[in-house]
């Protein structure tokens, strides 16, 4: 392989169009030396490593290294060729033809073929928890060993993103199609993929050791010899490990004080807003079947009574952005013109008066309980803030804690709550992570992160149905903009915080991930300079 000098790289980058890799201009990529080991520290615990049947960062981060996907996303939300050299969408938008690379091999030496792509698409469609990702896929037909045609029951604009890392890992048919149940398949803990790294060892509770796959189809990549994901129980030890250089990457610093500490630490760089496509939002959800909360004016009053700036800047150190609607600000579908609820106690009081909930002689109006996901320090702070904040409005708030996640999930998904703080993630395309919490058809008892607010607005249902099939980007954006405006006005939730992923790097880590998926994208460009 030709070795590029920095000058050549700069010239090539300036020369323009064809000189990019996965959408990243070459002049942005530093030339990195081959070799070295990078250790990522995390508190996340993967169940297994097969992201075809498992969501969550814990699995997706190693899976993005083990498995290649048909496409990968760049820093500008654009899909770039990966296992698929190119793809074509039919005129009626009901089929997508994938042309696969002919030189791609699995880690066991077998070639990656259209059969594997068909098997993987069907596996994800039938088993992945995000049903909407590939729900419209009717069939996958194979034209030749390197061409697969995805046939759809309806136009599906989210399809290309749903084929990116690590939603659609191409898993080997010759290993997983052996009649065993795929969700509990023993090879999920010891998989073979065609990604830049192959698995050496997965020890739950300890580490995942990955090694460079020398036959990776992108020649010369990855530069690293090994990539290790090390599990820590305690977030405080994790930051200390980064400061000491025991690890090279801290996968997510959440505590504001720790973020400040990391920013001041020598030889540490904090990348803010890493992986914006993941898009977590913390909101206060209202149970709209509650006698008082069924009235939009009451929900709006509570929203006006919450000083989000105080929560975010004073209580949470100003490291997170304010959320104003159901789609995060980094998304191309975000509506920046939505009017946020400004802190206004007078307006809030007037709304409650108008709703017939006038203050009694002692100043109180009614009482509500508020839940929160246990273990989240940010939510605990918000929960505690709500008591005095809503007391000013005459609402007596009772804080209810849940001993563990299942208890909270059961209460919320059984609609046994008044208000709850919740964290719901966008997951790239609204079809995947947004529709589920707003569609009236998705009010499902017992299912967490469905429409547990019991929110129902036929106009919203209609807009989401249209946007979910609209292939014209401009029209689709317009539909989502209107949806956001309505939802914010209806106020089934009060949006509080866009949780910002702050990833800590040792400064000698080169080519930090720029994809909208952050650390859950292939780290095949990353290198490490000797300290």
């Amino acid at each position, binding site marked *: 392989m030709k070795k590029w000098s920095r000058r050549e790289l700069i010239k090539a980058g300036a020369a323009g169009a064809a000189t990019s890799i996965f959408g990243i201009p070459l002049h942005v990529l530093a030339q990195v030396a081959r070799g070295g080991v990078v250790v990522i520290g995390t508190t996340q615990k993967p169940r297994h490593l097969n992201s075809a049947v498992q*969501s969550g960062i814990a699995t997706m981060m190693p899976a993005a290294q083990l498995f290649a996907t048909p496409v990968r996303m760049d820093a500008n939300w654009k899909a770039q060729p990966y296992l698929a050299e190119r793809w074509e969408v039919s005129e009626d938008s009901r089929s997508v033809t994938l042309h696969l690379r002919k030189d791609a091999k699995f880690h066991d030496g077998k070639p990656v073929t259209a059969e594997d792509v068909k098997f993987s698409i069907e596996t994800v469609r039938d088993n992945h928890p995000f049903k909407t990702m590939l729900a419209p896929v009717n069939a996958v037909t194979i034209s030749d060993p390197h061409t697969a045609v995805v046939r759809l029951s309806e136009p599906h604009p989210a399809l290309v993103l749903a084929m990116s890392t690590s939603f659609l890992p191409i898993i080997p048919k010759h290993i997983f199609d052996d009649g065993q149940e795929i969700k509990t398949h023993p090879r999920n803990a010891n998989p073979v993929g065609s990604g830049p790294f192959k698995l050496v060892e997965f020890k739950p509770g300890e580490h995942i050791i990955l090694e460079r796959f020398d036959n990776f189809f992108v020649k010369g990549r990855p530069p690293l010899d090994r990539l290790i994901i090390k599990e820590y129980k305690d977030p405080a030890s994790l930051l200390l490990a980064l400061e000491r250089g025991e690890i090279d990457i801290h996968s997510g610093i959440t505590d504001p004080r720790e973020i400040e500490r990391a920013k001041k630490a020598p030889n540490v760089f904090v990348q803010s807003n890493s992986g914006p496509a993941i898009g977590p939002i913390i909101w206060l959800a209202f149970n709209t079947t509650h006698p008082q909360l069924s009235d939009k004016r009451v929900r709006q009053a509570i929203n006006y009574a919450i000083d989000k700036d105080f929560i975010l800047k004073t209580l949470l150190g100003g490291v997170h952005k304010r959320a104003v609607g159901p789609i995060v600000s980094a998304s191309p579908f975000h509506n920046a013109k939505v009017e946020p609820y400004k802190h206004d106690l007078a307006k809030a009081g007037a709304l409650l008066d108008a709703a017939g909930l006038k203050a009694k002689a002692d100043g109180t109006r009614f009482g509500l309980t508020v839940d929160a996901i246990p273990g989240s320090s940010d939510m605990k702070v918000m929960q505690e803030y709500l008591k005095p904040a809503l007391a000013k409005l005459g609402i007596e708030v009772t804080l209810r804690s849940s001993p563990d996640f299942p208890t909270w999930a059961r209460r919320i998904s059984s609609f046994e709550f008044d208000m709850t703080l919740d964290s719901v993630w966008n997951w790239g395309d609204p079809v995947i992570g947004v529709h589920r919490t707003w569609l009236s058809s998705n009010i499902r008892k017992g299912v967490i992160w469905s429409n547990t607010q019991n929110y129902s607005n036929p106009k919203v249902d209609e807009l989401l149905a249209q946007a979910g099939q609209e292939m014209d980007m401009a029209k689709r954006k317009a539909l989502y903009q209107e949806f956001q405006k309505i939802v914010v006005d209806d106020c089934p939730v009060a949006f509080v915080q866009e949780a910002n992923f702050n990833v800590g790097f040792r400064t000698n880590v080169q080519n930090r991930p720029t994809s909208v998926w952050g650390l859950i994208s292939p780290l095949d460009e990353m290198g490490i300079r000797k300290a």
Partner: protein
Amino acid sequence: MRFIALLIKRLAYAFGLILAVLTVNFVLIHAAPGDPALVIAGEMGGADAEVLEQIRKNYGLDRPVTEQYVTYMSKAVTGDLGKSYLLNQPVVDLILQRLGPTILLVLTALLTAILIGTLLGVYASQRPESVASGAITILSLIGYAMPVFWTGILLVILFGKVWPIMPIAGMSDPRIYGDFWTTSVDVAHHLVLPAFTLAIIYLAQYSRLSRASMLEVLSSDYIRTARAKGLAEHMVVYKHALRNALMPIVTIAGLQFGNLISGAVLVETVFSWPGLGTLALDSILGRDYPTLLGALTFSAILVIVANLLTDLTYRWIDPRLRTR
């Protein structure tokens, strides 16, 4: 012969005890609120009703509890403890992976505590009124009073930040992959802080206990006789007195093995030590019933084995017991 009969009898009791432990734990765990399917769904990033049903079916959670119990016990007696709900791997494999690190941690801590604690106690007993004896007593009290997780955090700050010479998490550095000796040195380096943290509380107890025990033994007639015979002081102390003074230490060591394992849960969490304790903790938080039951059962086995070994050690220390 008498010894073998005794051993067989003890092993039979142990087997019955393990079955009882399994049953009680099974009942308690299933009586606790919370649906494992929801946890698994939460780990997966959410799921619809169909997926939830599939999860329940896959793990037999849709069956009545009595049926689950009979299925579990009939498999357990053959050594099959089922599959982990969360990690989707055989529980026995997971436990065997974690058992070694826990035994290594607990035994290192126990031996460190007994050895250093006893030596300090013996030293203090010989000069009970000295400043050194007073210092040992005060240090013992401090060690005994400090919660083990707090000691661990202090040591992490001290040796991780202020004087960064020790690894603060895990059992090994995954960057280091080499021969047996390289790996062993790396593991030993990682073991220092967790083992010392766990040892410190017991070290305090053993030093107090051996001090009191030695003071009592040293005032016995036979010690006076030994000294009158002109034996060297170190022979009097270490050969004659210490052997008798060890009895209460061995008794306490056996009795405290269970406490040591529960202390290991905290230490393993602070130092991310990949042992049974952290496995049990993750299983509790994740409602991973089979793994939790497995971890508790193996903890019970460890305690039973420790008690058996204590009995055998008694017989080695006190020849009078061998004739009983």
